[in-house]
């Protein structure tokens, strides 16, 4: 499992393909990827750009911790996370979560677990540029699965 934090744009498909090239051939039966991208609106405001702050060292440690938990809770082969920091423009990918497993249920569950708990624990902070000026985002939008039952379905 691996985490890459980077301040330059990335292509999620190429990143997934490159990581997969080092995995054993023919062992996985499914890959689930989640790609989070930047919206040009938030909380009723137009957003022209965003700056992502993070805590080097702690960020990687906590994302890897969430990935290891997901691997304990479900039967996955591998997982890879890429997360942007620095200046980001609308429509650019912010985060990639890719999970390889023998069967789809494990891949779906682990991918959702990783993105949900990454958002809850990994120390990143978004500062948006809007027509009214720059503002720190106070909270993320929640996944109803986390709101409703606290944990993604199979891990409840």
């Amino acid at each position, binding site marked *: 499992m691996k985490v890459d934090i980077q301040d330059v744009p990335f292509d999620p498909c190429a990143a997934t393909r490159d990581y997969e090239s080092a995995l054993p051939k023919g062992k996985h039966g499914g890959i689930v990827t989640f790609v*989070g991208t930047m919206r040009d609106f938030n909380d009723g405001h137009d957003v022209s750009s965003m700056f*992502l*702050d*993070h*805590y080097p*060292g*702690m*960020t990687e*440690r906590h994302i890897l911790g969430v990935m290891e938990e997901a691997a304990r809770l479900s039967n996955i082969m591998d997982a890879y996370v890429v*997360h942007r920091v620095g200046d980001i423009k609308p429509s650019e990918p*912010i*985060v990639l979560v890719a999970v390889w497993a023998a069967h789809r249920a494990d891949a779906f569950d682990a991918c959702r677990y990783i*993105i949900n708990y*990454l*958002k*809850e*624990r*990994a*120390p*990143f*902070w*978004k*500062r948006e540029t809007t027509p009214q000026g720059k503002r*720190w*985002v*106070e*909270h*993320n939008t929640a996944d109803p699965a986390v709101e409703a039952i606290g944990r993604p379905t199979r891990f409840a």
Partner: protein
Amino acid sequence: MSVKIRYFASMRDRMGKAEDTVVLEGGSMTVANLWKKISGQSLPSNTLIAVNMEYTDGSAVVKNGDEVAFFPPVTGG
């Protein structure tokens, strides 16, 4: 004892700096008391605390050489 303090996001703006090293008398102190000492205020309610990059709370005890971070709720992903 000497403690490294780091501030992130809106907390960095509020404190006007990204980090600080403070030298304190004694060998240990709670995070809440450390905050009072450096800011003269009580800790804002939504502040998250990490000691040596692990989440904790104001009751945690800080020792010589520790790194203590104060920051607002996280918004990655």
